[in-house]
């Protein structure tokens, strides 16, 4: 058995207790606990899985099953900023192909990749982000950006880089 190096900060440990108190069954807290762990660690490593399993008294396989089922949990380090380009029907009608191709050129990595400097990671996703009135649109670090053009994408990337 290897020891894990990940553990919640004291503040997050308190938050963990608060999350548990919302549910009559502790297992129900798992998705929220994984969100919290990902916020702290950037992704769900095997270390994080082992820690959460111990903390919640669940087999690791239960954690792995959940982590791999949901698309918002990362299983490897991502960029400091993460971009999701919506490729769903309304964005397709808004020519999201152009935005995807532009991002590929600008970032120099294929979807799923991380830029060499670690600034950005990105995905082109077939599931709808629920902002079709803004097509074509994308999400950067949780925030939505719409009515995109290649120029607008460049400005958004530039601004995000400045924040680093």
């Amino acid at each position, binding site marked *: 058995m290897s020891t894990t190096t990940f553990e919640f900060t004291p503040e997050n440990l308190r938050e963990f207790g608060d999350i548990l108190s919302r549910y009559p069954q502790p297992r129900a807290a798992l*998705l929220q606990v994984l*969100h919290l762990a990902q916020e702290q660690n950037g992704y769900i490593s095997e270390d994080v899985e082992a820690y959460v399993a111990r903390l919640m008294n669940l087999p690791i396989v239960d954690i792995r099953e959940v982590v791999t*089922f*949901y698309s918002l*949990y990362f299983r490897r380090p991502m960029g400091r900023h993460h971009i999701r380009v919506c490729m769903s029907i309304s964005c397709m009608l808004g020519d999201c192909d152009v935005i995807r191709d532009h991002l590929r050129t600008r970032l120099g990595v294929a979807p799923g990749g991380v830029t060499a400097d670690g600034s950005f990671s990105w995905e082109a996703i*077939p*599931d709808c982000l629920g902002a*079709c009135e803004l*097509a074509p649109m994308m999400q950067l670090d949780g925030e939505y950006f719409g009515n995109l053009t290649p120029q607008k994408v460049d400005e958004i990337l530039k601004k995000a880089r400045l924040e680093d």
Partner: protein
Amino acid sequence: MPIVKLVSEYFGNEQAKSLDWYRQNGGYEAARRAIFEMAPKQVTDEVIKSNLRGLGGAGFPTGKKWSFVPADDSKPKYLTVNADEAEPGTFKDRYILEWDPHRLIEGIIICSWAVGIHKAYIYVRGEYVRPYRILKAAVEEAYKEGILGEHVLGADFKLDVHIHRGAGAYICGEETGLLESLEGKKGWPRLKPPFPAIIGLFNCPTVINNVETLSHLRNIILKGGEWFADIGVDRNGGTRLFALSGRVKRPGVYELPMGTPMRELIYEHGDGIAGDRQLKAIIPGGASAPVLTADQVDIPMTFDDLAKVGSMLGSAGIVVMDESVCMVKAMHTIADFFAHESCGQCTPCRQGTGWVYRIVSRILDGHGSVDDMKTLESAKKNMSGTSICALSDGAAMAYGGFLSKFPEEFEYHIKHKKCDLQEKRMAVA
């Protein structure tokens, strides 16, 4: 028909999400009236009278759904609010969460009073970060002011409301997938029966209602069920938030009476087709709803009228396509979505969505064969009625729409290895 603002009344109003402002404008008066002046059954009766139907997409009568919860069960009862809005082309609940979170909380109180519920969970899709933050602030404010908690609005009635964030899975919008996800598991839908009203969250009786559905309760209590029913048409009460997108000049969320024809939504409220091109096709209720052709634009938007023509109003996400849109590409986009989002539990869906995506991909790429149409038809047939939840049926319905309404486009792609609209598309671009 005129725009009737019931749940969209405060869209665009920056102040409305503050509790102070909401209360100054009559907020929580309906919840107060329900708790202090009405017996739970009276509230349910009013909702039954209103003909309010489930606005997440299934359209099941709301009051009837509540009445299935056994009154004499000793187990706790739960309300789960479905804010896992993820049907492609749908974005109306996001507006409620972002602009008017207290209207939803007030609806939660009214429903909980009617059914005898003391704990509610709002399941918000993980991608909705901003809506989550706004809703969280509103719930915290409501607790602080004694609107939620041990004594709701000072009454001898306890109600806790928690927000549960999803983590990126369309299937969790399916009500039993949502329950599994709430219990900390992967979102694999459950076999029904038993229905959630009897055995739902944590094996207890559970009501699952959509954000927009609950948001109508404030007005139904204040103005009465009959008033609400009169706004709509027969058996389809009130208004609906129509999320309009695609090739229109003015996409957005429009609240209109049930029964408004699609033409009015697209040409009046949406200001017509982008570039003044010709209308070609309409998806009337999110990606699962079979596509309609331009000559069907006068159909009134009700659950029943769209079901009659073999499609559905579903989530009321209306996606507009003009003459320059390739239907093979449109189906390809939707097939990609379903293949990505099938949860993998049932073989016909897991395999079928993948097959269809790969076949349509090769047709689009100019590698289709004449047998492909037959294979698509058979995949579609074998995906209907053969799986636990409706995702597979919805995908099959969507495929069927494209294949039956626009077969010539698929045949052209297969025969000529290219799109006959390519030149047209180029000219438009």
